[in-house]
Every structure is written in structure tokens, then in C-alpha cells.
């Protein structure tokens, strides 16, 4: 392991001593300048400037990594928050729809109740289970039947006007024939002139007035009410308005009427328990 002495250089030792001396002087100067406020000598500043890219780079990398990490955390947080907000939006949208639905229901029912209070006839509120307005036979099925006091030939109305009459009942359901049905007939009168006639459904979305003489005063827009002469419908229920009134081919006018009820949007109805004419009276009626 030992090495011969001639290998060891001597001059480096001298250099070592000189360097230590210089460094000591440098330290002395530096320690002096500390007390007079100047903490960085020019030499120190030069060394710092030379190697400054390294701490800057380290700082930049650290800052970037920190920013990236926090950005990632923020992004994760934002994603979770976004998902949570999406869930809340869906929940609130559903609630909003339900509230709107409830509000609509409330308005309709309130209108219906107000209307039913105006009527002197006993009535029952019913919901529509099925509605068939597409075929020639216009009908609907209600969720109340004979158990609720509904009987055949009870009039069915809502706040807009006349809908039809009950033609069949079970214990808890009933079937209604709409006034637009081709087999339906309602005794009506024109509100303005009190002229009476018969309303028949045209099998489509409208109805026609029959038995109005050619000389009668009928104009488009005239309101049509139930006449209360058929033993089914009470008097004064709005039925619709005259759309067209032409002079017919024979003694009677040809009158087209538009029902006041929108049959496509019926949800609740009022069934009027009208006073029925006894069978015997009907049998001997003229």
C-alpha cells in the first residue's frame, strides 16, 4: 500500500498554503463587510451569478411540480364538484318538473273546484284513465264508477264546458261518450238568440248543429249552451261556439260548431249527478 515519496508532489503543498491564505483573507474581508451592512462581496456575487441557473432551474422545477400537483388536485376537485353539481342539477330539474306538474295540477283542480262550486248539482271529481279521440267513437274512461255515485247518463264537464255523458259504469270505473262522438246528441241553444237545436258530433274534432231553421239568426262566434231539454245535461253548460253557419239545402241551416273543450288535454273532469227522468215518463214521452 505504501507509495514511494518521490511520487508525491511538493509544490501542491505550497499551492495549498497559498490558497488557504487567500481564502482566509477573503473570509476576513467578508466578515468585515458583514458588519458594515454589505453582505455580498463582488466575488461572491460573481460566483452566484455563474451558478444561478441551477437554483433557478430547481426552483422552477419545484414550482412547476407544485403547480402541476395542485393543478391536478384542483382538477380532481373540480371534476368531483362537477359530477356533484350535475347530480344536483338532475335532482333539481326533476324536482322542478314535479313542482311544475303539481302547480299545473293545482291550477286545474282549483279551476275545476271553483266551477263545481257554481253548479247546484251534486258532482264527483274524477281522473281520466284512458282517452280515445282518434277513432270515430270518441270516449274516455274515468277512475270513478258506481261506487262514487256515478250513474249512466250523468253529464261530464270541466271548467271549459261540456265533455259528454256517462254511458257505462262499473264499481270503480265509468265510460264517457264525448260530445264529438258521431252517435252523440245534445239539446242545445244559442245563447244570443235562445234558438234551440240539436248538437251531434261529426266523428272528428268538431260537431254540427241541427234543426236550426234557415231563417234563424245565427252568426259565427255565437256561444252554444246546453238547453236542458234532453233529460241528461243540465241547462246552461257551455258547449262551444259557432264557426260557420250556412244556408242548408232544405229548411234548416248547416252549422259547424267548435267545442269549447280541448279533448286532447283533459286530465280531470266533474261528473254531474243529474236528476234522471223516470223510465215511465221517458216511455210515454212524445
Amino acid at each position, binding site marked *: *500500500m*505504501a*507509495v514511494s515519496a*518521490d*511520487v*508525491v*508532489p511538493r*509544490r*501542491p*503543498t505550497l*499551492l*495549498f498554503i497559498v*490558497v*488557504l491564505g487567500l*481564502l*482566509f483573507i*477573503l*473570509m*476576513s474581508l*467578508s*466578515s468585515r463587510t*458583514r458588519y458594515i451592512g454589505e453582505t*455580498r*462581496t463582488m*466575488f*461572491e456575487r460573481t*460566483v*452566484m451569478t455563474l*451558478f444561478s441557473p*441551477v*437554483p433557478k*432551474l*430547481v*426552483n422552477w422545477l*419545484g414550482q412547476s411540480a407544485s403547480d402541476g400537483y395542485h393543478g391536478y388536485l384542483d382538477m380532481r376537485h373540480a371534476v368531483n364538484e362537477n359530477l356533484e353539481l350535475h347530480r344536483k342539477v338532475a335532482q333539481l330539474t326533476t324536482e322542478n318538473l314535479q313542482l311544475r306538474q303539481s302547480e299545473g295540477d293545482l291550477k286545474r283542480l282549483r279551476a275545476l273546484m271553483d266551477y263545481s262550486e257554481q253548479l247546484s248539482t251534486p258532482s264527483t271529481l274524477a281522473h281520466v284513465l284512458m282517452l280515445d279521440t282518434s277513432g270515430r267513437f270518441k270516449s274516455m274512461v274515468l277512475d270513478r264508477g258506481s261506487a262514487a255515485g256515478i250513474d249512466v247518463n250523468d253529464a261530464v264537464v270541466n271548467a271549459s264546458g261540456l265533455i259528454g255523458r256517462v254511458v257505462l259504469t262499473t264499481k270503480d270505473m265509468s265510460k264517457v261518450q264525448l260530445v264529438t262522438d258521431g252517435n252523440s246528441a245534445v239539446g242545445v241553444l244559442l245563447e244570443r238568440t235562445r234558438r234551440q237545436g240539436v248538437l251531434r258530433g261529426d266523428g272528428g274534432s268538431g260537431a254540427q248543429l241541427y234543426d236550426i231553421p234557415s231563417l234563424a239568426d245565427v252568426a259565427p262566434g255565437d256561444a252554444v249552451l246546453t238547453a236542458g231539454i234532453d233529460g241528461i245535461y243540465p241547462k246552461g253548460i257551455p258547449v262551444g261556439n259557432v264557426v260557420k253557419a250556412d244556408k242548408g239545402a232544405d229548411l234548416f241551416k248547416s252549422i259547424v260548431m267548435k267545442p269549447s273543450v280541448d279533448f286532447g288535454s283533459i286530465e280531470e273532469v266533474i261528473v254531474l249527478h243529474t236528476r234522471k227522468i223516470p223510465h215511465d215518463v221517458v216511455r210515454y214521452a212524445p
Partner: protein
Amino acid sequence: MRWLRFLVGLLIALTLHSLLDSFFPNALAFFNPYVILIVYYSMGGNIFGAIVAGVIAGLVQDAYSGAIFGLHAFALTVCAYAVAYINSRLVLRGTLAFGACLVGAVIVNELVIYVLVNILLKQKIEMFEQGMVVKTIFTCLFGMLVYQLLTLFLREEPIEATRRPAGW
């Protein structure tokens, strides 16, 4: 080439210094990367190179620490000279030898700093002994790990492994 390697080592040491300063401000009280570099370089046995390396590394350390400018340069130069001097006479190789040199260098480094601070600033370093022991242990362990990795994976030998003939 050896100077280039030294420069790369110095940049790595400075990077470590900056990183530790940024994230673990007290870590440099327990660990000195510059001593590892200097010992690694000085184990080549080139005294002249070791002195220059000690001065440069020490000045860089001084520039980025709050000490008197030249304090670490002085201490590291003494360490570098001592290690290089010993290695110019004894061919010390291997991780254990490197660790022994490192332990000695850290102790010398700390003692020189202690003395200089006493002389120049008339101050005493508090808990000097404890700090020196901790710094010696951690620096030695880390230095030996680095040495082992360099030897195993890069097939590195200390810079200037083969001794040069006399003269500079």
C-alpha cells in the same frame, strides 16, 4: 474529462443543496453533498486538482449559504488536500475506504468551520458535537450509497483513479 465530471458533480450537489433548501430547510444541517463530491474527486490522488476542486465547490457552497464567503471553501480545501494527500500515498479503493475517507473529511470539515467561526466571528456553534456526529453519519451513509451505485451501475472509479507522476 475529469473536470467535466467534476462540474457535473458540482451541479448535482448544488441541485441537491437547492432542493433541500427549498423543501427541507434543515436537511443541510445533517448532510453535506459537497464533501461527498470533494472526497470522491480527491480519492484520485491528484493534490492540485483536489485543491482547485475544493476551492470551487466551497465557493459555490458559500455563495448559496449564509456563511462568511470563503468559509466552506477553506474547510473543503483542507479536506480535499488531506484526502488527496493520503490517497497519493495509499491506494485506497472500495466503498469502505471511501466511507472512511468521508467520515474523516466530514469531521475535519466541521472542525475547521468551528475553529474559523471562533476566530473570525468570535462565536461558538451550538450543539457542535451532536451536529457533527449526525452530519458525519448521514453524509457517510449517503456518500457510500452513491459510491456503491456509481461503482455498480456506471462502473465508475474515483476521478483520477490512476495516480499521476509527480509535478503539476
